[in-house]
Structure formats: structure tokens, C-alpha cells
């Protein structure tokens, strides 16, 4: 299986350990994973700001970089969601449509494509709060939400439950948005920060030592909030936990 690895710009620049864990984890399953060297971003920051016109060049580059892969895997739900739902600033050729359809967020890929049943190398004896970013949650459908009727399920929780020693705690508002929201975090800074403060407090009150998430951008925001508040809360991407990270 030929896999294209998409490491979003902010992970490349600020959280390389998340990219490394994603790559190593995929390699553990014997996959042929390639990282196209000319990749940058998926176009989401511009498109979510209303500027699809400014996203076109980035989207075209993305489509060129990832054409021909059977699957394109990324450790970022919102980027995967952008490509699948909103990468529309460029002409929708057959090639572009194939690239869009083949993108999978890491949890989806492990859960729905590889059907992983065990992570024997993983051991994380900690209390963790699980944060699923809103694009992953409602956009990609990684889990049911507290506002929806019907039997609950959660793909990230299913995967984490296969990790030795892990204990998942329950915040009061399990799927309230943390307030990152891309450029929202800057242009609506007062509400964004308030939401972030409330989010980290909710997890801390539930007894979490770590917040684990398939969405590093949410964690970047929450980490920034917790550090400013002087809280003793740690943040880790789900790829790292599943790849056997030790505290």
C-alpha cells in the first residue's frame, strides 16, 4: 500500500515529534510511506477566512504533491476535512477529485482502513482527557457528539482503549469547542482565549494529567492557554501515544 504522508505546516514547523510519531506508527504496520518534499499546507487558513481565491495556489500544489497515492494520511483532522470538504478553489479534475477522496485523518485510517486491533508497544499509564477537534468530530464523524441522538461511538477512544495503562477521564463538556478555530484564534482573540481557558480548566477539574488529541492545532492553542495560566497540564498528540510514547 503506497501512502503519502501529509504533515501540515504548523506540525512541520512547531511539532515535528508529531510528524515523526505518525510516520513511525504507520511504518510499524509495514506500509510504504512517502513524504513528498515539496508539500506546505492544504489551503485551509485562507479558505476558512473567506479567501478561497488566495487558497488556489496552495491547493494546486497540494494536489500535485499527492497525486497517485493510494491513501494520503495526515495527523490533523481539520486539514483532512478541508481537503475532503472544501478544497474547491481549483478546477475539479479527475486527479484532484481522487486526491481529495483519498485523504484520511490518522485515526480514521487506523480505525477504518487498517482496522488496527492492538498497539502492543504502547503503554501510557496516565489519566488523560480526550479532545476531538470539531472538524474531526462533526466534519469527519470521528465520534458521536453529546448533542446527537443515537448510540454513542468514538474512534479515537476505541484506539486509545487498546493502550496499556491509559485512563480516560470525563470532562463536564466532552465536546465543547476549545476556541482555536484557525484565524478565529487571532481575529476573535477575546472569545478564543476564554474558550481555551474554560476547556483546559474542564479537563484539569476532571483529573486529567494529559490532554490527548488527533488535532494538534487545538492542542497548540490549549497548551498556550494552560501555560499562561501556569497550569500543570501536558499535551500530546494521539499519534505519539499510539506509537508508544512514554511520559
Amino acid at each position, binding site marked *: 500500500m503506497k501512502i503519502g504522508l501529509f504533515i501540515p505546516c504548523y506540525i*512541520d514547523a512547531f511539532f515535528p515529534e508529531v510528524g515523526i510519531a505518525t510516520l513511525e506508527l504507520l511504518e510499524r504496520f509495514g506500509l510504504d510511506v512517502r*513524504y513528498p518534499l515539496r508539500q*506546505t499546507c492544504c489551503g485551509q487558513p485562507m479558505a*476558512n477566512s*473567506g479567501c478561497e481565491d488566495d487558497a488556489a495556489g496552495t491547493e494546486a500544489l497540494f494536489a500535485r504533491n499527492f497525486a497517485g497515492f493510494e491513501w494520503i494520511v495526515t495527523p490533523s483532522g481539520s486539514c483532512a476535512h478541508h481537503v475532503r470538504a472544501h478544497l474547491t478553489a481549483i478546477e475539479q479534475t479527475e486527479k484532484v477529485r481522487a486526491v481529495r477522496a483519498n485523504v484520511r485523518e490518522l485515526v480514521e485510517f487506523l480505525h477504518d482502513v487498517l482496522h488496527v486491533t492492538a498497539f502492543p508497544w504502547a503503554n501510557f499509564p496516565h489519566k488523560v482527557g480526550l479532545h476531538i477537534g470539531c472538524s474531526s468530530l462533526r466534519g469527519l464523524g470521528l465520534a458521536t457528539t453529546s*448533542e446527537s441522538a443515537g448510540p454513542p461511538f468514538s474512534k479515537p477512544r476505541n484506539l486509545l482503549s487498546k493502550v496499556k495503562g491509559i485512563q480516560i477521564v470525563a470532562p463536564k463538556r466532552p465536546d465543547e*469547542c476549545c476556541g482555536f478555530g484557525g484565524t478565529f484564534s487571532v481575529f*476573535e482573540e477575546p472569545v478564543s482565549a476564554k474558550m481555551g481557558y474554560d476547556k483546559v480548566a474542564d479537563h484539569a477539574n476532571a483529573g486529567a494529567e494529559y490532554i490527548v488529541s488527533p488535532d494538534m492545532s487545538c492542542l497548540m492553542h490549549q497548551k*498556550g492557554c494552560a501555560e499562561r495560566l501556569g497550569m500543570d497540564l501536558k499535551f500530546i498528540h494521539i499519534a505519539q501515544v499510539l506509537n508508544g510514547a512514554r511520559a
Partner: protein
Amino acid sequence: MKTSRVDHAEASSRFIAAKDHVTFHDRRLWDLRTKRDRAGAEVEEWEDLRTLASAIKEHTLTHLADYLEEFERNAQRNGAHVHWARDATEHNQIVHEILRAHGARTLVKSKSMLTDECELGPFLGRRGIEIVETDLGERIQQLDEEPPSHIVVPAVHKLRRDVAQVFARTIGTDPTNTDVPYLAEQQRRDTRPYYLKAEAGMTGANFAIAETGTVVVCTNEGNADLSVHVPGVHIVSVGIEKIIPRIEHLGVFVRLLSRSALGSPITQMTSHFRAPREGAEMHIVLVDNGRSERLGMSDFWYSLKCIRCGACLNTCPVYRRSGGLSYGATYSGPIGVIVDPTFNLRKYSALPFASTLNGSCSSVCPVKINIHEQIYRWRQIINERNQLPIVKKEAMRMAGKVLASPALYRSAVKAARAGLEYLPRTVIYNPLNAWGRQREVPRAVKTTFREWYLKNRGKKS
């Protein structure tokens, strides 16, 4: 005419600065959200109801002219007068003309967002007619000279002590007594005489049924019924999107409305108004005010399905932390964000950005309006019509250039890394760095992922 842009971010920072208020507001509305979740879960066919309600509205909106005319015929047959108002001004003139013909000086009114949308109060005020709001929350807001901040609970941003202050100042209550029954009773005593004095009463309508020509008003206080049954003239203001075809459809919406709004199975009163009492008059004003234009917008006509339950406001994490008044519009929260720009694109061009696109609004909507997708579309349109702030547009133009070029991107990453590594804290956390006002920025890293990959898997790509 150049109108100034509503600055939601600035207004929200003032709201958040009042700590007691924002905490109460967030908790109170989250409580309504969770009550809604429980109420919905108790109805086995909840999702089917939502689907059905959405389909009924879709059908009605695609046959709107026919159903409006059917409604008019049946309402007239029942003995009501039916008026058509193209816009807010026509609505206000029609209402004024009815009142003038009856020599009315006072109008008692139950809750209606439409009359706020039309700015009826100031219009009549200038013509010497007093409007008295009879809904408790609306009355609080009227006495405080503020618009409602929520479409269902208009004064939800106020604490008990705020209400005590408003009442002390305006109707002479004890400013130190913040007991809720006391305050509610004082409002009741103050309002009751107006029912007897007023020459006309006014209501909105939650639903207008084409088949029967009746209007249905859902309330919890009984004030709508008093407003209708005491004075000799009943005026109903109803937006043309409130039509439903048949009485059998009403049950679908009634089951959804109060559960979605407050988590209660039904409102205390569901009043059907069919015909005037003997010797009295009933006037129904059907108001367009931009609705038929919206019906023609392929991306946005779905918003006309709205039954004004407020569930999207209650679930919205941004609304709960910024308050309805921060939207500077009649309709606030997610539904406001997608409706307000149809009234004035420039004035409300910041509102679609007062959202994280988290999508919970769409998930709770009882008529399945794709609210967050419409928010995304509005952002594109605001950019296309050159209504983005220049700073933001320039930032996106730059970002688009850099991210479209692997070489420029790598230089930008290097520059950012050098900045984070070498610049002193005071420079990084400068006043222009909105990220850093209340948050730490990420640390500089030794190698990027790409550099690591080249070093460790270099032969592969």
C-alpha cells in the same frame, strides 16, 4: 449609505470582562442545551421529527406563494383582515394606520422578533403611541432601553441584581430585593393596568396555518392571550416564512420547538387565534422584508426554515461567551450570523467570522439548517464583495503566496524559528501579537519535520 461595521470581537471583550456575567450566561445557556439533549433523547423518533420538519419547511418554501394565498383566503373567511407588507416601513405604516383608525394611544404587545426587526417601537413612539412589552424578559429589556439579547430568553445576559436595578429605576421596586418571585410579581403588577388601558394588542406568530387561516402563538407566561383578549383590536405580525400547510403539520413543530428551546416538552400555552371576538377586529400583517429575496439565494434560502427556537444560540460556544448584544443586530448567535448579512452585508460582515465553524449549531437545529456551512459560504461572499478588513485580506494574500511556494514556505519557517529562538520575550509578546495576549506561543524547535525526514529517511523520497 456607509454604515459602520459591527465589531463583534471588541464587544465580546467587554462582555468577557464582566466575569460574573459571562460565567452565569455561559452556564445558564449550556444548561438549556443539556436539557434540550435530554428532552430530545426521550423522544424515540426525535431524528425522524427533525427530518420531517425540515422536509415540511422545504416543501412550504418551494410553494410559498400558493400557501400564502391559501392562508389569506382562509383568514379572510374567518373574518380577519389580511395585510401585505413588502418591507419594515410598510409593516410599520400598516400597523400605525390600524391604530390611528381606532384612536389607539397604547399597544400591549407580546414577544415578537419581527417587530424588533422592523423597529416598530421607535416608529410608533415618534407618532405618540406607546408600546408596552408584556413578556417579562422583553419588558426588562424595554425598561432598560436595550434590545433583546436572545430570541427566546431576551434578558438572559442580566443577573438578578441587574434586573432589580432596572426595576428600581423604572417601576420603583426595592433595589436591594433580588428575589425572583418578587421581581416577577412587581412586573406583573406594573403591566396589568396596561391591558385594561390599551386599545390594541399585538402578537407575533410562531406558525401560520394555510389550511385553516389560523395563527399559533407559543408562550409560557400567558401574556399573549391577555394582549389579545382584553383590547378590541388584535394585530398579528408574521413573517411570510412562518407558514405551514396543514394543521396536522403543527404537531411536528410543536413537539420540536420547546424541547429544542428550553428542554421542556411544550410551552405552557399554545394559543390558536382564528377569528376576532364579537365586536373586535383581527388584523394579520404578512411581512416580507427581504425574505423573498433570501428565498432566491441558492446558498442561503435554507435559513428561512428557522422556527426561532434559539437552540443554535444555546449550543454556540462563541455566543455563550460574547452575549447577544455583541452581534449588534436583531438576530444574534449562529442563526443571526447567517441572516443578518442579508439585511446589510457591510454592517454585519464581521459576524460570519464570530464562529469557529465547530458545527454544533447545525447538529441541534430542529429543522436541520446547515448553519455552519452557510457561515463558511458567507465568508467567501464577504471576501468577493471586498468587505474583509484590509489587514486580514493582505495577510491572506501573503499567506496564499508563501504557502503556494515550497521555497518561500521554507524561508518563512526558518524566519519564524529564528524569531522564536532569538527574539526577547518583550518583542515576541508585542501588542500586535493577538495570539500572545493571553496565550504562550509554541517553542522554537531544533529541526523541522522535513529536516528530520531528509536526515532519517532521505533516500526514500
